[in-house]
């Protein structure tokens, strides 16, 4: 399977060059460069406060870096905004879930189709033929995701009543509903037990495999990351201290020091 991956991974789709981000006097990110290739699973790891989430927020345009350049599929930006990021096919999930707790699983995932709805609010309100046909098509897409994530039993259940692990899956489902080229996952396995982590790992691999989606994920849990990623970037105090295959990163002395302390 691994040999097959080599041939699938394509050209650079996202190129981050010399990114620096500061909030007032606090430097969150300092001169960071890395790239993401099409169809790969790219992990960003680092201890608490290393700047992982800031990095993700730069990619999808929530933060604008003071310096640096982002190139997405060959188009260069000095700043990104979140709407444009979404339109260019970047979807994300959140570390602290941002789902609509009172809405059903189905409706939550349907919201992910928002950008792809063509008919106007009036057409939808009066259920004109075109709007209805469109909704059926979107519903079918969403049902495929529900099937994919194996949450058929909870289709009509309000999200707030589901256990955390399942809510995370719904969050992933909503991001997938955008048909993203690139998926940003912010600590997809935080707070999960081992079984839930294994399930989530499988779903991430399957998304990558079935839909060919490029995945950038932030994770705390080194073990999981090393198992599923193609390449890993390591951040510490806003600086890049390592970049490469999981094996290379694992044996990098700087990384070991950052994770296990100097005395090791």
């Amino acid at each position, binding site marked *: *399977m691994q040999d*097959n*991956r080599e041939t699938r991974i394509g050209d650079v789709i996202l190129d981050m060059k010399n990114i620096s981000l500061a909030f007032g006097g606090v430097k969150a990110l300092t001169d960071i460069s890395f790239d993401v290739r099409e169809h790969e699973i790219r992990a960003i790891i680092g201890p608490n406060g290393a700047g992982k989430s800031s990095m993700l927020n730069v990619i999808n345009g929530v933060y604008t870096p003071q310096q640096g350049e982002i190139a997405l599929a060959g188009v260069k930006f000095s700043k990104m905004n979140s709407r444009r990021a979404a339109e260019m096919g970047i979807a994300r999930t959140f570390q602290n879930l941002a789902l609509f707790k009172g809405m059903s699983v189905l409706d939550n995932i349907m919201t992910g189709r928002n950008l792809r709805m063509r008919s106007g609010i009036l057409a939808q309100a009066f259920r004109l033929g075109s709007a209805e046909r469109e909704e059926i098509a979107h519903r*079918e897409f969403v*049902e*495929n995701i*529900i*099937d*994919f994530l*194996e949450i*058929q*039993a909870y*289709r009509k259940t309000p999200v707030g009543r589901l256990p955390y692990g399942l809510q995370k899956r719904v969050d992933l489902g909503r991001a997938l509903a955008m048909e993203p080229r690139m998926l940003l996952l912010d600590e997809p396995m935080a707070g999960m037990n081992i079984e839930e982590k294994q399930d989530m790992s499988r779903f991430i691999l*399957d998304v990558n*495999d*079935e839909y060919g989606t490029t995945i950038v994920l932030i994770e705390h849990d080194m073990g999981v990351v090393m198992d599923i990623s193609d390449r890993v970037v390591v951040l510490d105090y806003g600086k890049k201290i390592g970049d490469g295959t999981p094996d290379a990163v694992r044996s990098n002395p700087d990384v070991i020091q950052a994770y296990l302390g100097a005395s090791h």
Partner: protein
Amino acid sequence: MARDLPTQSISTQPETFPAWVQHHARVRGARPAMREKDLGIWQTITWAELARDVRVLAHGLAALGVQPGEHVAIVGENRPRLYLSMMAAQSLGAIPVPLYQDAVAQEMLYVLQDAQVRVAVVEDQEQVDKMLEASAHCPDLAYVVYDDPRGLRNYPPGKLLAFDALMDQGREHAAAHPDFVDRAMAAIGPHDAAAMFYTSGTTGKPKGVMLTHHALIDRALAIQELENLTDREDVLAYLPPAWIGQNMFSYTQFLVTGFTVNHPESPNTVAIDMHDIGPTYYFAPPRVLEGLLTQVMIRMEDASAIKRKLFHACMKLARRVGVRILDKDGTVGLWDRIKYRVGDLLIYGPLRNALGMSRVRIAYTAGEAIGPDLFIFYRSIGINLKQLYGSTETSVFVCVQSDGQVRADTVGPPVKGVEIRVAENGEIQIKSPGLFKGYYRNPEATAESYTADGWYHTGDAGYLDTDGQLKIIDRAKDVGKLADGSLFAPKYIENKLKFFQHIKEAVAFGAGRDEVCAFINIDLEAVGNWAERRGLPYAGYTDLAGKPEVYELIRDCVEQVNADLATDPRLAGSQIARFLILHKELDPDDDELTRTRKVRRAFIAQKYGVLVDALFEGKSSQYIETEVKFEDGRTGKIAADLPIATAKVYPRNTKKAA
């Protein structure tokens, strides 16, 4: 009575399964044969479409070189395509062998080798992985056909073949040999083997039970006549396809009667799908009915005080008159009937609806003995639940209770065509047209299962009641005697314990001893809920099982059983003196239960010998370390110091203590 109806002209009736498929396509081609919920919408296949697909698929299997008499393994949940594959295999005269989909590769290996399987049709990646793991030791296994391609994109092709690709091969084969399948179907005789089921084997290795077209079809026809089944029935296929009971209801009876079988979206959605469909003909082993009742009871405990009161008042009335009303007993008073009608509006009707049983006309339970209270619960809310008796070797139907004559402690009179006798040792022996052809490649076992004069040993102990109904006590070999010579029927005691919602499994020991002791498995869901309500923290099963509060809870249950046993003069000696709560759940993966979740008592007694000894020695606790197998085949260890509790034993022949 159904028996008085004129029987249809037997001569024109199809005698093999492929012929039945053709028959239904001709007679009711536009009627729905199968439905499957896909992407949230029920999709229908008509009989005409079904027959067409089966034909293409049969050509496909022929292209893979499947020969008459060859075994084709079928592995997966209930999926229409797997059932189509069984029909296709039968159309070629090949013999489908369904395997339990939750078995690990090791267990499948034995069957694959024994049945010399060359072609396996499986559901998904999970099953493909097991087949590939087993294939290293199965040189015969040449093709693994899979239904769901998810996750299999990067597998080396080798033995793997997608279902759609098989259909394509079938179309090519059909173009080249248009009458191949027709000729193959014509060559099948009614006394050829139609299917093979591996018995889960409470003892020793599983045995392949060969059943003929004639045996299966004959039993299905007998039941169709008895219950007036029509092609309008709806059935939900939700039990393991490898179990004869599931096969009888969703395959054999389906193909004979021509009704509609509905396939759930996934195993987790069965309750929702059942509610959608509202089956009219329903089959559930007692443990499923027990699970449903436990859920109802838990939800009632969470309900408001008024609703709880109303529920309990209505259930009290139902227990008193519900069963008699269902049995059309004329002696129920008018006032009670009015009250029951009101209860039906307020509680019983909505409850039946919530259970998905609003339209159930006939419901069966079988597989093991059912607790009388559980049985009566369903009947009292107006569900026509009946018991039946049978096994894989008898094509299920030996006895079925008839409407209006249903009792909790019997399994009904023999079905048409069955003869029953009780041997001197109390064992029930039968003759029936539904009996099996033999165990595959095991003539000794086949010979052993028949008496010298040709009766089949059921291995169950029981007797025929005064009104001709069969009553089963226990497995003949399990019924034992205590040291003082009084009767010891372990299953009877275990079943009494298991009726309590807090107890999931129980194993009683006592043969040849002075007293009876028991292992208990608590029901994690029910006891967990009880613990939460009391603010009792716990980390998992092992932790919860060891809590002194939980021991008190279970002691209450055990003492109630003892009080009940004390009123029965024959069984008063079997009261439970001491018990312990096991530190792990009994699990088929650890060989402690069969795949149909029957307790393997001898194996457990041996595995936990230390605990059994400690119970009978009257120790106050015992340390034990146990190896457990995880679903992926890895092993781990659980250790615990198990307390042993004593229970109050009541004097013989007293009335029930308060």
